[in-house]
């Protein structure tokens, strides 16, 4: 069955304070969506990410590698988390993404995996 990456996008400096009532409600919505994915068999994997400032870029450079601080893309919007789902086709994946967007309260990019 085709698999899709559903990535969640945030402003670079999104809040990680999970103690606020808003964040708690968001966590509950996402958790309910995760349950739905697992029950329907669409679930493959999912994770929320620490802010982009926690990222390190590792680059091949000749026969060694170099490391730099920070996210690869210096953009205002950064990936904040993702799901990998399996779905019969694009329309099913988009329908699930719509539910995921409602649960997470932000835009979701849907991208098919190869193979």
């Amino acid at each position, binding site marked *: 069955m*085709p698999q899709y990456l559903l990535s969640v996008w945030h402003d670079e400096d999104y809040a990680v304070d999970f103690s606020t009532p808003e964040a708690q409600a968001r966590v509950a919505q996402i958790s309910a969506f995760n349950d739905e994915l697992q029950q329907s068999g669409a679930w493959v994997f999912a994770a929320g990410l620490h802010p982009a400032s926690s990222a390190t870029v590792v680059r091949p450079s000749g026969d060694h590698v170099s490391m730099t601080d920070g996210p690869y893309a210096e953009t205002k919007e950064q990936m904040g988390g993702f799901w990998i789902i399996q779905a*019969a*086709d*694009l*329309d099913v994946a*988009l329908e699930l993404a719509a539910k995921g967007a409602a649960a997470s309260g932000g835009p979701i990019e849907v991208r*098919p995996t*190869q193979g």
Partner: protein
Amino acid sequence: MTETLDAVFRREAGRCTATLIRVLGDIDLAEDAVAEAFAIAAEQWPKRGIPPNPGGWITTTARNRAIDRLRRESTRVERYITAHHMHEQDIDPDSTPEREALDRFVDVVPDDQLRLMFLCCHPALAADSQVALTLRLLGGLETGEIARAFLMPEATIAQRIVRAKRKLRDNHAPYRIPGAAELPDRLNAVLASIYLIYTEGHTATAGPALTRLDLSAEAIRIGRVLATLMPDEPEVIGLLALMLLTEARRPSRLDAHGSMVRLADQDRSRWNPDLIAEGHELVRACLRRNQPGPFQIQAAIAAVHTDAATAANTDWSQIVALYDQLHAIAPNPVVALNRAVAVGMLAGPAAGLHALADVNLPDYQPYHAARADLLTRAARVAEAIAAYDRAIELTTNPAEREFLSRQRQHATTTPSPS
């Protein structure tokens, strides 16, 4: 001879492609099979004569190409057999039941064309890609024809089509008619795409007209197919009616010098009575159904215009009422602008300008042109000239620029009484 083959191609290409995409599960393979069938026709018909049913001949030949391909690719045949509950272990492709089942599988069904329309106008594709793909796959147009029609480089259109097809394939876009819950949104995308093709053909008067394909005629052709396939969708009928009634007035839109003629000054004897009759019949059918939508209301407005024997006889109160209805269900500044123009015709330029006061379209040429006309009629000459200048500045179309320049000249020389 080539004319006939072209005509058959135009009529059958979209239909064959639609079915073969289902059979082969791949857009490119389907296009190849259809192209192959037409290549065989181009070679055989001049020698053996045109078959009695040329369309059927093309379909059958393309189907046979598809069957050959299915046989060669055993995995596809197995998948098809699984899907169709044929559990025999050893398949003899020439045995009659197998052959008949294959034949049924590749039968041309009208639903295929609908599937193709929804695929071409999938919301995952940008609007310009939807338009290009619709014309290519459903309209059976060559990439070069589409490019010339849009006055764009062929490479741009080719790339747009290739990318759209690749996106649909990589994403495993389904080949199906959307379910009831999503149908309204998905159908709106199809209607918007067809109307975009129509308006492009209707307004684009720039460029060498003789070498350009008539996009408006293509849009009407596709609109007719959709109306046959979805006769119970009032907006589908509304769109067709709107296109027919707009098309009916087309012969009088430009004068002998290629300059635009506004509705009030058009020679109504040149309007196409057959298209008007057909459009009015469709509008009446929509009214009976009483499920109004934006295309139906716009068609009703066009019907009121074409109902008037002279511009002075236009029922402006009816038109204002229809614009009010349109603005209630689909509010947008362009509708408000058109409503203000109608108010100006019904109740005079001061009332029109008053209605226009709420409209904010600073970069929209028709806004300034309409405002200039109302100001001229209200004898506010200096403001009218300024509005014409802004409208002319925003115009890219030579026929419209010519028209506006003449209107501007007219405003300076003969200021009308208010």
